[in-house]
């Protein structure tokens, strides 16, 4: 009969992949279902744990997120998994990414400049961003490219200086060397740098050909003026970022770093690659391409178990059976929580999402106010099982992880990836344990 696994995880982001990985490493059969390609292409690649306390009115950032976790409200997902749960999840993450990431030497948050010129407190950052930390006092030149419009280097440098960073920051906008189309994709630049393609470069009345890494360094040199480090938008190679950075550093005689960017994000794609690789190695099966829309109840009389989730494909419903399920479909942005003018709902299992009946209570008046909608999501018991409106477990064999969980505002707190990792590992392990115990 049909397709059957021990644990089925719904959702392909950080929470879903981590849950699948954690479960598979416990030795059970795991399938991950995701509607589209992983949303990690839209992730910055930074792994935040906790940057600000809720309702801190912009005070902060926190220097030690672990110290702050016990002060969070009871409904916060970190209170469910505890400080130990967060540490265990980071250990899993560190094992997966190896030397591609930094930050595991300390509990303190690192301060990473973003493409808007803000400074973000984060727990783990790509090695490629390491030389850019805002706590470092070396002078910095930010380099933007005319056709990469998401990064305005002079503006970002001004923002950094007015944020009070302890170093001088300048920005310059240059054209990327070579004859690339005006709307070339950032992956095109990254591929060219990976392969060190030869590009045509205009000199004084002559044209010559140079390897692109060298040509790029030559174009930056006139702007260097003694800067000790140089930041580029995050496009320094898809597959060989270390090598690209080393070549540029050798040419420029300065440290080189990447500034994380919006989607499509190359650091996000590199992280996706690392997580997918670890999942495959652990035996996770991936089924991607169609949305999970609802579920089938268990066959046993009196049981409230979920027997299968149903994937919708042009009018046909394909059931995926499992013993245990993990819901990791994301929040309001990721479409794991849905809302209309009448109410807020979790669309697959119709789990209860606490919210006011009056939609004018869903938001605060100020644009950057403390919006209740940002904390919309399912409530769970200690084992991450969603609760219904009476506070009882919705389904004995369903756990939730990541942004679908309520009680936290990942954007204001800077806690997104950390919540996904911590609850993903906890939900995955717990689901697997349930399978082995039964």
């Amino acid at each position, binding site marked *: 009969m049909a397709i059957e696994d021990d644990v089925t995880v719904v959702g392909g982001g950080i929470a879903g992949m981590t849950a699948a990985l954690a479960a598979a490493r416990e030795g059970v059969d795991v399938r991950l279902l995701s509607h589209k390609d992983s949303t990690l292409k839209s992730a910055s690649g930074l792994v935040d744990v906790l940057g600000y306390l809720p309702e801190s009115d912009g005070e902060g950032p926190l220097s030690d997120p672990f110290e702050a976790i016990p002060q969070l409200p009871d409904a916060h997902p970190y209170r469910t998994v505890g400080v130990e749960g967060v540490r265990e999840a980071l250990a899993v993450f560190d094992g997966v990414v190896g030397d591609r990431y930094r930050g595991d030497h300390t509990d303190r948050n690192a301060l990473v400049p973003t493409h808007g010129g803000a400074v973000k407190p984060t727990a783990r950052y790509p090695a490629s961003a390491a030389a850019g930390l805002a706590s470092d006092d070396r002078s910095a030149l930010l380099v933007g490219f005319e056709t990469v419009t998401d990064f305005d280097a002079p503006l970002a440098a001004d923002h950094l200086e007015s944020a009070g960073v302890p170093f001088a920051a300048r920005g310059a906008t240059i054209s990327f060397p070579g004859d690339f189309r005006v*709307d070339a994709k950032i992956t*095109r630049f990254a*591929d060219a740098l990976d392969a060190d393609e030869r590009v045509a470069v205009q000199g004084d009345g002559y044209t010559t050909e140079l390897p692109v890494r060298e040509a790029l360094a030559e174009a930056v040199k006139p702007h260097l003026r003694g800067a000790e480090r140089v930041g580029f938008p995050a496009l320094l190679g898809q597959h060989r970022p270390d090598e690209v950075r080393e070549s540029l550093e050798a040419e420029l005689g300065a440290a080189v770093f990447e500034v994380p960017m919006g989607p499509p994000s190359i650091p996000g794609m590199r992280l996706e690659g690392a997580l997918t690789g670890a999942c495959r190695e652990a035996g996770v099966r*991936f089924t991607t391409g169609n949305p999970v829309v609802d579920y089938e109840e268990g066959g046993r009389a009196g049981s409230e178990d979920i027997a299968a989730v149903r994937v919708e494909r042009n*009018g*046909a419903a394909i059931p995926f059976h499992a013993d245990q399920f993990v819901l990791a479909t994301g929040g309001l942005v990721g479409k794991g929580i849905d809302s209309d003018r009448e109410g807020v709902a979790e669309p697959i299992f119709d789990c209860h999402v606490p919210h006011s009946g009056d939609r*004018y209570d869903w938001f605060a008046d100020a644009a950057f106010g403390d919006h209740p909608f940002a904390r919309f999501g399912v409530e769970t018991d200690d084992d991450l099982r969603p609760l219904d409106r009476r506070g009882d477990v919705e389904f004995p064999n369903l756990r939730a992880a990541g942004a679908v969980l309520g009680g936290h505002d990942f954007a204001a707190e800077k806690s997104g990836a950390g919540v996904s990792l911590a609850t993903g590992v906890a939900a995955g392990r717990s689901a697997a344990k349930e399978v082995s115990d039964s």
Partner: protein
Amino acid sequence: MSDAEQPTNPNDSNDVNEVRHEETVSDDEFEPVQVFPESEDMDLRPGSDDCYKCSTCDTNCPVAEVDDDFPGPKFQGPEQWRLKRKEDTDIDDSVMSCSNCMRCDSSCPSDVPLSQMHNTARGEYVENQMDKLSREYVRNRILANYRTMAELGSKVPRLTNFLMGNSLVQAVNEKVLGITSEREFPEFAEETFREWWEKRGGPQVRSEDKRVAYFHGCYSNYNTPAVGKAMVRLFESFGYEVVVPKQRCSGTPMFANGMLDDAKRAAGINVENFSGLVEEGYDIIASCTSCSMSLRQEYPELFSYDGTASVAAHTYEALEYLRLHEDLEAELADAEVDAGEFAYHAPCHARNQGLAGQAVELIDGLDGANAEDVGDSCSGISGTYGWKDEKYETSMKIGAEMFEHMEETDAEAGMTECPTCAMQMEHGTGYEIRHPLEVLEEALVEGSH
């Protein structure tokens, strides 16, 4: 619908109660604002509005990756759709460089129907802007209507195979028609699948409740009937009644070449012939993933014949179907085969249907066979695309990564569900390529004979 899409009167005061009053207006009084007043066959505006220009589709497009002149799916779809609202703006001819792999669809985080937009834009380009006497048009029409050519060719398979393998004929094809001489034409079978089917007297199993209608498509009929035969034997061994209704090309090569009129005619016949069977309790199965993709997704996106939706909802890829209705994994766990190692490539159109991992998962549990997935890369041939003289090089550049990954595996043979991916795999590596159905039939049927 979000609040943002509701029209509000800018003269309304900011008084909270005023706003609440507006909320009580019932839905049927709401009238959408007509931004583009001219009427048209298909309104793609909602899809266009859903695009927030994140460009993820562009980074996933195998053509854009190797062809700097190709502006990518975001331009071909939502941006071009907006541009051509202006009456004097033509469709950009770069739309003909899209290979219809449909990867943009699965990469879009906002559910924009990109391939539907590309199909309509391509259709419009061919209809209004292409010279019907041009070499390109004639060549594309011939390639798109492969079935017509195949029907003639297969009447005298040996002669056709001899001619098509003849270097003089190939040179003429390239010079006159723009069909690359780099490739070897697929051989026509001495006996088509349908001829075999009729000779064996049709279905060997009759069943009231387990019944499927086989959409064999052109390729397994004219070129690789072994795949169709394996499928029939496999399904019959599980007690299914298999019927093979009259059918035309699924339309995939026609969509890819913007020949929407041809595709529409073919789709009409297919929908008519299959929807009646669906009513009688038959599900439709296909052994080619582009065929199943076409019936499932492209028909409902582009046409509105009676029965289109029910045909789409009842169409399955053959392995998928067996897997859903039988305990295929248990059957395979008890079976054994002498097939060896395969380098498996998931066709783009299998990926899009959510079937990318399926063959590897199934063969994993089978003694005597192993399939290693060679990764996400596109094979690059995309049906008729890689046959075009001017696209051949792009096609091979896209395929390079797959060839490399195939060579890196221990396998000496390849495996895929898509007949043209198979051609490209063979062309790039020299490996013999098999269909997973053939291996399954060997494991589950031949042994029991």
